[in-house]
């Protein structure tokens, strides 16, 4: 027994055990507890009587939740496509021996250091129809110019898309650029020897070889979409009306201001489920060979 203990001092096992206990309690334990709460009628304080899937039924008949989900899908699609396209384009351009590369890179990346709260506020000010961009263009003489998406229920969601592309394009650029820099220089020599046009070289040779890099970008952006909260708070507060509500905000609102623990837990579980479903292919390919 004493030698066993002594040997442990030379092994990582105890540290691993403590770490895993923390993860098990605070992550997996919390998830279990949340899933339990989602099966009860808890409001301000937890109630422990299981009532089945009532909260989920309520959730999916709740207009605000349905709108939140729809908003998330719209936001997610435009944000991901936009950020990937813009980020990859910037990475490719930055990889083409441009002058002042580090100057441009510094500019493209600084939004990553800015919080989403400040991102949201800045873009709210910038897009404010009465004093922002619209006012500027009208002031320059184009009186009929209109860019009032921030205040239009059917368009406000796209202003969120713009602000978050601004925030994340640099992330995609950095990751893809690191991937491009990692490409064997012999491959480029071969491409030149074969006389392949540049756009085809990227689309058919370079990017297919970088699938894991692009996959990790997709995964990162996806989890941003599902977690999106701060930006909405700073930029639109879910409005106008409920035009920019999203699940993350829905859950927090129901946890803390509308004190409906059961419903908020059900919403959180749906977010978790969605995350896992979307991430399964990634985890499958990452861990398949290793487990």
């Amino acid at each position: 027994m004493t030698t066993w203990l002594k040997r442990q001092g030379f092994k990582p096992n105890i540290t691993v055990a403590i770490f895993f206990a923390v993860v098990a309690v605070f992550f997996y334990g919390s998830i279990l507890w949340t899933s339990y709460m989602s099966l009860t009628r808890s409001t301000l304080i937890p109630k422990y009587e299981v009532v089945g899937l009532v909260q989920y039924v309520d959730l999916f008949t709740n207009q605000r939740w349905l709108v939140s989900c729809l908003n998330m899908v719209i936001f997610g699609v435009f944000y991901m496509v936009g950020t990937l396209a813009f980020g990859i384009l910037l990475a490719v351009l930055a990889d083409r021996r441009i002058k002042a590369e580090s100057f441009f890179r510094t500019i493209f990346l600084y939004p990553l250091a800015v919080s989403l709260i400040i991102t949201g506020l800045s873009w709210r000010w910038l897009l404010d129809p009465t004093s922002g961009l619209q006012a500027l263009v009208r002031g320059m003489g184009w009186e009929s110019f209109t860019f009032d998406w921030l205040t239009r229920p059917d368009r406000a969601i796209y202003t969120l898309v713009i602000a978050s592309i601004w925030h994340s394009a640099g992330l995609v650029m950095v990751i893809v650029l690191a991937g491009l820099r990692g490409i064997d220089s012999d491959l480029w020599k071969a491409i030149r020897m074969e006389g392949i046009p540049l756009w085809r070289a990227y689309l058919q040779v370079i990017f297919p070889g970088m699938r894991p890099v692009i996959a990790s970008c997709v995964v990162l952006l996806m989890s941003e979409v599902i977690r999106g909260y701060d930006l909405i708070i700073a930029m639109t507060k879910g409005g106008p009306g409920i035009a920019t509500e999203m699940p993350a905000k829905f859950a927090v609102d129901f946890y803390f201001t509308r004190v409906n623990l059961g419903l908020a837990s059900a919403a959180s579980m749906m977010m978790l489920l969605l995350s896992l479903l979307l991430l399964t292919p990634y985890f499958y390919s990452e861990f398949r060979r290793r487990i």
Partner: protein
Amino acid sequence: MTSAAIRREPAFGPRTARVGLYAFLVVSAVFFLLPLLLVIMNSLKPMEEIRQGNLLALPINPNFDAWVSAWQSACTGLECAGIRPGLWNSIKITVPSVVISTLAGALNGYALAQWKSRHANMIMLLVTVGLFVPYQAMLYPTVKILSNVGLFRTYLGIVFVHVIYGLPYTTLLFRNFYVGVPDEISRAARMEGASFLRTFWSIILPISTNILVVVAILQFTGIWNDYLLGLIFAGNDNLPMTVQLTNIVSNARGAANPNVNMAAALITAIPTLVVYFLSGRYFVRGIAAGAVKG
């Protein structure tokens, strides 16, 4: 000719294409700089200029009045002490959270890299999944646990939450670094009679300076910029700057003073921006490293 020169030979041969390329880069740069310029410009304007309505006009008589009132007299609610208390709170929360989560992540990462077991990959999968769990699925139970031990809405509570929530991330970053460190070094230390902790402290940490800086910067940016956890767990006496900032902006009196709001936003953004500009290389490397999770 070096291979790098061959590789990055510009194939944008025609001059027009080259011009188009730079035009695109410049337009992109304007897009990225616009919000920052807007905020800087207006934070320097006096109220008379703001009232003229156009936020994108250049300041005529720039001064720091708005900065001064953002710093010491803007109202976050009933109190009107500016963003200054928030700055102190943010420092007080961020510094220990970053130090603890980084060092603990290093120790755990080293342990996981050393740990040989058939279940090691299973655990890595569970930890990696943990990175992607939305906070909402963990928030309430964490509130519950902290209330039970009397830490909910306290200073220690918010630090604890930042450390715990950051741990899987820092651990994985360090683990990915340490699996690249030859196993024989740890074995050699064991031959010399160094215990696990001793090996970590005397042999492994001294060769980890780069990754320590990278992870610390990532954690600093993440925790400084956090809003949700600060709002829920910090308690009224410890609200971080991000929360104070939204309070100033949404305060009824604040709505009338955009220049003060923007000055407050800038003050809040300065620490992470300074870290970004000073540590560019590490920051970039951190993002690239963080992307390769698992």
